[in-house]
């Protein structure tokens, strides 16, 4: 595609796919969300100035502020700021030129940005989601929150949809980073030698892959509940527990997902500013891996106050205590690194040290909550609020340290050291003033602004602390602004003992990152000359960056060691593309579609009102609901409808153009790939995507099993009338799997006619599958059985509907490929895309193999 416009033009930022640009976009956007979330916090903290509230906010506004604050901080600030660092630094630390899929990376960013915009739009749709960031059932469906909240149902739905869109963005990022870190490491850079920030990020994305997929499944079900009136979370038959299980299966790992990158930054800065390799580095890595695994084994410690049985509570208490052990090891490793090194108290180090102190306090108070008995006392109080802020803001503290640490690299300028230290002082004092009193007011119930008079002084201290803490960020922004305008130019490596690869190239690094091919084959970083097009001067230049970790005995600075000058374009021969507008356009299309979707409940109710009324006349949806309440939603809102349909059209067009665009992102020829050598980047990416889809489908199928177990297995009967229809569809799908694999054979033989015939047959079979399905559903509708007719019906329609949606996506992709073969003879030279399509199609087939017995036979 076209060249990349200069950094000063707006167009650059709309079309860029370069990892450093995207990193900067992520960092700045997340800081904006920090400010927005922070302002919400200051507002509701001001409201808490007096017991019973100052009247600044209404009750519902208070709930919205607390809820949105929590959502914004966790999802739109804390995770993305780490993503920003990872985008910028991971390719540099592992010696790659970019991420494996640059356009996908830009797409992740745009989906993230637009999802945040949707969240804030929700305030203007009658009010945002107000039921807490944990979105507990059954309050998460409108019919259980009558009164004021019914009006807010559109805004509430919007907040849920925004979160769903955010998760889509995260999933794309996960696929990208897993592929990049596993397959794009410079020669000689084994996993053990990888820098610790990259290590922490690698584990973060592995956790994200599994955790966010579970959340995605939960959000799909919740969105369908809210838009289509299905009943996953609306019943009194296990709905609350179903949500809690799905949410916390995601939510607990999420705690480590947001903390790990911060931990990685702490390891890096401790090494650099203690002038010493991390003590017990290998054990630290092993501990991190352990924590990542264990994080999926403790989720029920968030459910001690529910009706789960005592055995399982005890078990999860034990696993929770178990997970604190590897953390202890990491804490001691950091402390010993300080003891054994020579500490220099720069701003980044102060923040990292502060993070360590806060983390220790947060960890200790967490042990209280992990014990079932104490949790009965503390759950739902300000103790919890204090605890999780000590932990999470500990992460924030280290990330702020990271901002200072890498500021010279990213901006090319030094910040003001004294002002940085001033920031730290205000930050640390403000923070403790804000949260320590919350431990003391532990009897105050959480999310309530009525507290006992005796606690007044503590709450007022906290509010003052909040303003000091909030103000401290202004010092940081002022410092950075000063630095951009007047700050002295930064050398390549301003920190004496930093040893990771990003410090071996200029600040800021050139577009292509390296003056040649980075290699660690000799033990230290070297740049190997690669192509003859490369100017001879910059050949094999001995940078002195070790793979990781400084040492106090080495006293030479590495700042002037690289031979690369910023404007040297060594790699013009490869023609890597950098610019594409389509990620932005896809983001915009998705944004418009979801904007419309948030208001579709009214349309659905309007269209189905007769059936709903008829249905509610005979049998209760659930005891709390009556027809009037639901029919109150009816509102054929053509604006929303137009947005929804128009958005789908725009999105389809953008996806089509994205698919057609020529975009070359060369795969590294020489790279360390353990343990995923022998598959191409794209194929690996497809497999990672399928792994996440296994979880999404698994969680939806799991929801069916869970609800069925809850109901007593034999109270459910198969919903479809005809088992043979399911069997017929089994045959059809199996046959389509067979034809799609034949299509691959044809592509390998460069047989255009055969390829078109086989792919065409696959598509026809897919359409036949959909026709049988439509016939089956039509028959059910004719009998008056709809998705809102009862929990079993919701489970049947949504699970098989999600599968059908997968078939439809497959049909769209297949149709696109057929068009490409017909028009430009695609895939005859390179059959791999046919194989990738097949992987997906077979996966959808496998899902049906499981669904058929579950929904038609049992």
């Amino acid at each position: 595609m076209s060249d990349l416009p200069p950094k000063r033009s707006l167009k650059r930022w709309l079309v860029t796919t370069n990892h450093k640009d995207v990193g900067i976009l992520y960092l700045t956007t997340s800081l904006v969300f920090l400010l927005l979330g922070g302002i919400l916090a200051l507002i509701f903290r001001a409201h808490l100035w007096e017991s019973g509230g100052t009247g600044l906010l209404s009750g519902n506004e208070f709930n919205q502020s607390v809820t949105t604050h929590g959502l914004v901080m966790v999802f739109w600030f804390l995770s993305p700021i780490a993503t920003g660092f990872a985008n910028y630094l991971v390719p540099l630390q592992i010696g790659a030129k970019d991420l494996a899929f640059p356009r996908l990376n830009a797409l992740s960013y745009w989906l993230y940005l637009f999802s945040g915009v949707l969240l804030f739009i929700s305030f203007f749709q009658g009010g945002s989601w107000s039921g807490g960031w944990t979105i507990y059932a059954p309050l998460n469906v409108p019919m259980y929150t009558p009164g004021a909240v019914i009006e807010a149902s559109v805004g509430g739905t919007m907040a849920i949809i925004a979160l769903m869109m955010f998760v889509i963005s995260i999933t794309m990022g996960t696929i990208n980073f897993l592929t990049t870190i596993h397959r794009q490491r410079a020669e000689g850079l084994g996993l053990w030698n990888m820098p610790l920030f990259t290590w922490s990020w690698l584990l973060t994305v592995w956790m994200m892959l599994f955790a966010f997929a579970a959340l995605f499944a939960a959000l799909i079900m919740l969105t369908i509940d809210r838009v289509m009136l299905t009943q996953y979370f609306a019943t009194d038959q296990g709905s609350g527990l179903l949500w809690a299980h799905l949410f916390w299966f995601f939510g607990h790992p999420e705690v480590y997902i947001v903390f790990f990158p911060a931990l990685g930054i702490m390891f890096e800065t401790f090494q650099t500013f203690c002038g010493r390799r991390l003590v017990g580095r290998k054990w630290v890595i092993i501990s991190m891996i352990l924590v990542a695994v264990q994080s999926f084994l403790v989720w029920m410690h968030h459910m001690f106050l529910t009706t789960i049985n005592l055995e399982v509570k005890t078990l999860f208490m034990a696993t929770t205590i178990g997970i604190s052990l590897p953390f202890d090891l990491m804490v001691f490793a950091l402390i010993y690194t300080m003891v054994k090194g020579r500490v220099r108290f720069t701003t980044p180090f102060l923040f990292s040290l502060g993070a360590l102190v806060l983390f220790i306090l947060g960890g200790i108070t967490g042990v209280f909550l992990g014990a079932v008995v104490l949790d009965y006392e503390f759950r739902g109080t300000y103790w919890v609020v204090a605890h999780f802020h000590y932990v999470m803001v500990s992460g924030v503290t280290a990330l702020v340290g990271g901002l200072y640490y890498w500021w010279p690299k990213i901006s090319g300028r030094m910040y003001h050291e004294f002002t940085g230290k001033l920031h730290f002082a205000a930050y640390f004092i403000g923070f403790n003033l804000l949260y320590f009193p919350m431990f003391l007011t532990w009897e105050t119930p959480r999310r309530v602004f009525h507290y006992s008079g005796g606690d007044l002084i503590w709450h007022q201290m906290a509010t003052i602390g909040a303003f000091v803490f909030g103000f401290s960020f202004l010092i940081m922004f002022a410092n950075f602004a000063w630095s951009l305008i007047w700050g002295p130019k930064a050398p390549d490596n301003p920190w004496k003992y930093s040893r990771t690869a990003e410090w071996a190239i200029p600040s800021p690094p050139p577009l292509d990152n390296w003056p040649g091919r980075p290699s660690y084959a000799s033990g230290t970083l070297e740049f190997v000359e690669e192509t003859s097009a490369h100017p001879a001067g910059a050949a094999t230049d001995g940078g002195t960056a070790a793979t990781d970790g400084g040492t106090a005995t080495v006293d030479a600075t590495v700042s002037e060691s690289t031979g690369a000058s910023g404007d040297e374009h060594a790699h013009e021969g490869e023609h890597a593309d950098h610019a594409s507008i389509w990620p932005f356009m896809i983001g915009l299309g998705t944004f418009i579609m979801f904007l419309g979707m948030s208001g579709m409940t009214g349309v659905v109710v309007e269209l189905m009102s007769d059936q709903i009324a008829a249905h509610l006349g005979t049998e209760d949806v659930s005891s709390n609901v009556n027809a009037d309440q639901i029919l109150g939603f009816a509102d054929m809102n053509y604006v929303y409808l137009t947005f929804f349909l128009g958005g789908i059209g725009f999105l389809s067009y953008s996806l089509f153009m994205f698919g057609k665009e020529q975009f070359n992102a060369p795969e590294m020829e020489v790279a360390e790939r353990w343990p995923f050598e022998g598959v191409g980047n794209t194929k690996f990416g497809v497999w990672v995507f399928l792994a996440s889809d296994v979880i999404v489908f698994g969680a939806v199928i799991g929801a069916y099993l869970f609800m069925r177990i809850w109901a007593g297995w034999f109270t459910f009967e198969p919903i479809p009338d005809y088992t043979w229809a399911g069997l017929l569809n089994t045959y059809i799908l199996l046959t389509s799997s067979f034809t799609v694999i034949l299509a691959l054979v044809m592509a390998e033989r460069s047989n255009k006619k055969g390829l078109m015939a086989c792919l065409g047959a696959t598509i026809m079979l897919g359409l036949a599958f959909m026709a049988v399905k439509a016939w089956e559903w039509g028959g059910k509708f004719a009998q008056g059985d709809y998705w809102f007719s009862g929990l079993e019906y919701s489970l049947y329609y949504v699970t098989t509907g999600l599968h059908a949606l997968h078939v439809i996506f497959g049909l769209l992709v297949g149709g696109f490929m057929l068009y490409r073969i017909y028009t430009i003879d695609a895939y005859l030279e390179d059959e791999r895309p046919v194989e990738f399509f097949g992987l997906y199609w077979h996966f959808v087939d496998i899902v049906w193999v499981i669904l058929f017995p579950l929904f038609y036979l049992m």
Partner: protein
Amino acid sequence: MTSVKTYTIIYVILLALGTGKFLFFTFDFGYATAMGGTMLLAVIKSLLIAGYYQHLVDEPRSISYMMLVAVFMVFLLVIAAGYSIQ
């Protein structure tokens, strides 16, 4: 690695197994046997599709392990959650 013959044999087996699932519930085997039997057939079918149509047998083992971890996660969630309400 691609052999139309292998693919065809697998296709026929898959059709047979699919029919088998149906038969389990059509003739009276008792619910538990039928359920166990169909699930077993479903697992075999999934493995055949994944192994041969998706070529997992030819890919590095690590890919299969990754998919197994994903499946394990689902089992972990469903079994633990199912147990928690017993």
